[in-house]
């Protein structure tokens, strides 16, 4: 085996450090782009995000685990070859993803179920992250088996990728061009540092892949969406924006889902008029989303009303406006319209009270990000800025003729959450339900609404005297009311976002697979069975390890598995806390992720440089992790200073980095498997993502999960104290 040894020469040291650094750089960059492209291709709900991340971690872990046993003979040339193969597979994988609908036999515009999404995420992650997992071990072998050092360099590369991709590439380049640049830089750096005997092949492959990514983006998108006429595609910081033109009609889609079509008076009218007629005069209105789709224009039908339109993504609105007809643009240029680009949640926190109406016109609450606009805390924030008797309205997809138990649960949960904040709640039936809420009486009587519209001189196509009697027939309104009148459902809250879970069940029921049944099963489980039983089993599982006279090497990996689970859950929870408290701020969310990686680098670096017995410090580090969790838990029910989430994630990263190196060094004294600790870390994270993000957080909430994490880490601490101090390997 040829080993790259760091020498006294700085140049040589840099050369030896570059391949593991590149590993982290590539893995993180590829993961970010995979998530972005995946959510643009498949339905971007929280479960699908969870699948991609979980599959990624799973294959990375397995790659590292399996390679550890087989990669004793290796060379820099082999590593260079694997890096090149990964880049080729990467392009193939992304191409495969782009044409997934054709391969799955689906129409462009056809919804995809969870099973194909899971299959795709497993396959794509196998293509790319399995070999990257293998590379971890190969890098460790090339550094004389020093996997801790690889871990440090890899996390350093990941930090640079996190910052570079989010702050430099995504804001300025499309996903595919960004990938082209990443492959070009990392491919050439790999060749320069690993110096294979025949560099022409990897260099040519790198340039080819980078070129294909850059040149084929637009063309492949147009081809993939045929027969729909895709006229423009832009990757913004918030996702993929696509503009389709069908005859004279323009449809704007974000991440593959139509946000609005123009003209589409039905959606715009129902968003606006049911709320607008509730009070004699609506002078000041806040509209969150929907402005370019025609809702702002509908509000302008009331001559005395001024409207503030809040939109998250300026690029999406600007791109859409380029293709919309003049009248749509004119509405947004009207002096009575104030268009603000900000996170709606953040804007409302700062807003001065006095709005006569607040209207939400956003995509379905299928993700934690959008679900923030359907929670108890958000409704309370809205109530704070409403004028006396002010009206809040939101619109969600529903069913016109029959409310199924799955849909009923989602709608009734939403109704219950609204009812806890507002004394009056009414729901308009139809294929979309418009919820109205206020502290003063509301009416959905068709004659009242029609009369008010006529008095105001408002002429509509769908919300008018002709159409309302059928939609608001007492039969339909009372039926819906009966379905909503339930008090046995959990409240949708920021830190227990059960709304998106219920929405996911309804969504999954469309597909005739096992998905909906599985989700319903979890929804029906008592908290203890899912949260406490696994903890008990974990503790019981550790007893034979703790009771053994001599430690098995694998015992040293227990803290690594726990840190894998803990770190990913803390990462997701803190981002959720940040989004709820300060809004979805692209730059700061990226910074949060970057700081976690920086923490990992710093922690592992300190541990590597430490000359003391790292094993002895494990209990203290583990105890610090528990303290940090307690601190996070205590921060959940009070207003948060903005620096705290950043601090939490950096510290969590640092403690995890230190703990990883400490446990791994102890493990490696008794076992020659440089990839084992890394694999266990990733597999722990895999379980964390799969169980926490998809099921536990929405159903039982961040606080309940954090308490279980504290218990998990306490069990781990007890295990460390019993096993690591008193026994030898």
């Amino acid at each position: 085996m040829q080993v790259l040894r760091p020498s006294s020469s700085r140049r040589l040291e840099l050369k030896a450090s570059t391949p593991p650094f590149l590993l982290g750089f590539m893995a993180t960059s590829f993961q970010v782009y995979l998530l972005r492209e995946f959510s643009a291709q498949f339905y971007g709900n929280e479960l699908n995000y969870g699948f991609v991340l979980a599959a990624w971690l799973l294959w990375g872990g397995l790659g590292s685990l399996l390679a550890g046993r087989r990669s004793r003979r290796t060379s820099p040339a082999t590593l260079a070859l694997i890096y090149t193969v990964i880049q080729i597979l990467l392009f193939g994988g992304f191409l495969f993803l782009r044409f997934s609908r054709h391969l799955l036999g689906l129409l462009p515009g056809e919804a995809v179920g969870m099973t194909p999404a899971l299959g795709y995420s497993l396959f794509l992650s196998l293509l790319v992250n399995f070999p990257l997992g293998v590379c971890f071990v190969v890098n460790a072998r090339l550094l004389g088996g020093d996997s801790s050092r690889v871990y440090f360099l890899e996390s350093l590369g990941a930090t640079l990728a996190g910052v570079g991709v989010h702050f430099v590439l995504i804001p300025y380049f499309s996903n595919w061009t960004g990938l082209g640049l990443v492959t070009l830089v990392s491919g050439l750096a790999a060749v320069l540092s690993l110096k294979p005997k025949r560099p022409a092949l990897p260099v040519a492959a790198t340039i080819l892949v980078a070129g294909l990514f850059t040149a084929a983006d637009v063309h492949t998108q147009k081809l993939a969406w045929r027969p729909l006429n895709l006229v423009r595609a832009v990757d913004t910081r918030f996702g993929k924006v696509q503009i389709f033109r069908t005859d004279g009609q323009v449809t704007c889609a974000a991440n593959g889902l139509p946000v609005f079509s123009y003209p589409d008076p039905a959606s715009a009218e129902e968003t606006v008029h049911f709320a607008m007629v509730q009070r004699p005069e609506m002078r000041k209105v806040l509209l969150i989303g929907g402005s370019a789709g025609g809702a702002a224009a509908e509000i302008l039908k009331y001559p005395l009303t001024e409207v503030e339109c809040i939109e998250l993504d300026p690029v999406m609105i600007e791109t859409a406006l380029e293709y919309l007809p003049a009248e749509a643009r004119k509405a947004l240029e009207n002096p009575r319209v104030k268009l603000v680009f900000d996170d709606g949640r953040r804007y409302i926190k700062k807003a001065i009270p006095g709005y006569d109406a607040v209207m939400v016109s956003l995509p379905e609450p299928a993700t934690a990000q959008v679900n923030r606009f359907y929670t108890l805390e958000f409704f309370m924030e809205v109530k704070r800025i409403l004028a006396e008797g002010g009206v809040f309205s939101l619109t969600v997809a529903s069913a016109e003729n029959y409310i199924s138990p799955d849909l009923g649960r989602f709608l009734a949960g939403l109704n219950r959450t609204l009812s806890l904040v507002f004394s009056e709640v009414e729901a308009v039936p139809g294929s979309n339900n418009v919820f109205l809420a206020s502290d003063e009486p509301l009416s959905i009587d068709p004659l009242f609404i029609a009369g008010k519209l006529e008095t105001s001189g408002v002429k509509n196509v769908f919300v008018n005297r002709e159409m309302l009697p059928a939609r608001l027939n007492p039969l339909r309104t009372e039926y819906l009311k009966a379905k909503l009148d339930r008090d046995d459902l959990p409240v949708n809250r920021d830190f227990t976002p059960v709304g998106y879970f219920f929405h996911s069940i309804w969504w999954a029921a469309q597909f005739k697979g096992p998905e909906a049944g599985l989700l319903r099963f979890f929804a029906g489980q008592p908290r203890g069975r899912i949260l406490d039983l696994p903890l008990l089993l974990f503790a019981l599982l550790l007893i034979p390890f703790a009771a053994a006279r001599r430690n098995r090497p694998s015992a040293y990996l227990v803290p690594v598995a726990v840190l894998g689970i803990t770190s990913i859950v803390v990462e997701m929870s803190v981002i959720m806390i940040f989004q709820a408290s300060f809004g979805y701020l692209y730059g700061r969310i990226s910074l949060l992720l970057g700081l976690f990686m920086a923490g990992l680098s710093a922690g592992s670096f300190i541990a590597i440089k430490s000359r003391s017995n790292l094993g002895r410090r494990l209990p203290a580090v583990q105890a610090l992790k528990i303290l940090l969790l307690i601190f996070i838990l205590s921060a959940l029910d009070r207003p948060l200073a903005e620096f705290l989430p950043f601090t939490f994630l950096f510290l969590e990263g640092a403690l995890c980095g230190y703990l990883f190196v400490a446990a791994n060094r102890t493990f490696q004294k008794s076992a020659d498997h440089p990839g084992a600790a890394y694999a266990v870390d990733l597999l722990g994270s895999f379980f964390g993502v799969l169980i926490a993000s998809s099921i536990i957080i929405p159903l039982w909430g961040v606080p309940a999960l954090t308490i279980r994490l504290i218990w998990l880490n306490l069990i781990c601490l007890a295990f460390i104290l019993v096993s690591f101090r008193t026994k030898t390997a």
Partner: protein
Amino acid sequence: MKRRLFLKNAAGTGLVIGTRLPEFCSDLALAGPPPKLSHVEARYYRKLPDREIICDLCPRKCRLGDKERGYCGVRENIGGTYYTLVYGRPCSVNLDPIEKKPFFHFLPGTTTLSVATAGCNLNCKFCQNWEISQFRPEQVENFDLPPEQVAVQAEKNRCSAVAYTYTEPIIFFEYMYDSALEVRKKKIRNLVVTAGYVNQDPLNDLLEVVDAVKVDLKAFSEDFYKEYVRGELKPVLETIKTVAKSRAWLEIVYLVIPTLNDKPEEIRQTARWVKNEVGDHVPVHFSRFQPMYLLKNLPPTPVSTLELAREIALEEGLKFVYVGNVPGHEGENTFCPACGRKIIGRFGYRIENMDIVEGKCRYCGHPVPGVWS
């Protein structure tokens, strides 16, 4: 029972009905557990050896062993006898304007009692009632509404007709047929809103008891039917021809879906076929697609596409061609084919003017086909 508590109980069984709600519901046993599935022997099947049966209701001709269900999910072979599980067990009952079905030449401006059970013998990717059509009856909330009660409720709510609708009513044939007989006794009409995927024998029997049929012609290509509907075009065309020959009133709806069935040539073929095979007097509605079910990510149909479809069909010689789901559009109105005057003005579900007198144009006296009283 307090109104709120009543509604809560009603929700448990899936029914709240009627404009005069409490009276309406007091007729029905709503409180308590949902009713069990029915076990009424089905019609149109043949017994085979070894307790097998063949269903002759629709062109699928499901061959079923003991304890197996047909493709529709609502008809089951139990010990060699075939049963319908949804007789008197609708899951959706509503009051709708007749224009919503849509019927434009059948008692305009009146109200229908809409009745539907779970299940369907097709699987359209754009179904707007997928939560009942794609589920089995035990997976939805049903209520107990036997045929005679269908008639009673239609009468109480002053409905001009009962519409068997939402899902494919052919799959609850026995319930529909027996309800139609009861409804007729009250001098109320029966309407069928169907995709037309049915065999000729049951269809002919049904046509004896119903007054109007609206057929959803989903496209004019076998490929479309195979891929997006999981059915066949040919039997649907046969159904349309049979209805046209019967005494029941016929209207046709063609839901225009962007990129899938909106090619001008396909529209022209459809119009030609209608004119040649069933007559130029049959109303054809080109309806606007709204993103639904599995095609939720497709854009809605541009109004200009519908206008083009209407133009083509008029060019081909059809006399009553409508644009559907676009309230206020000129193509919603009925024009006299002789004098060209607007004889029924519509805005959505509302009739603004009705200038047909005794089945003739008020202005020129030209007969206007339809059922007007």
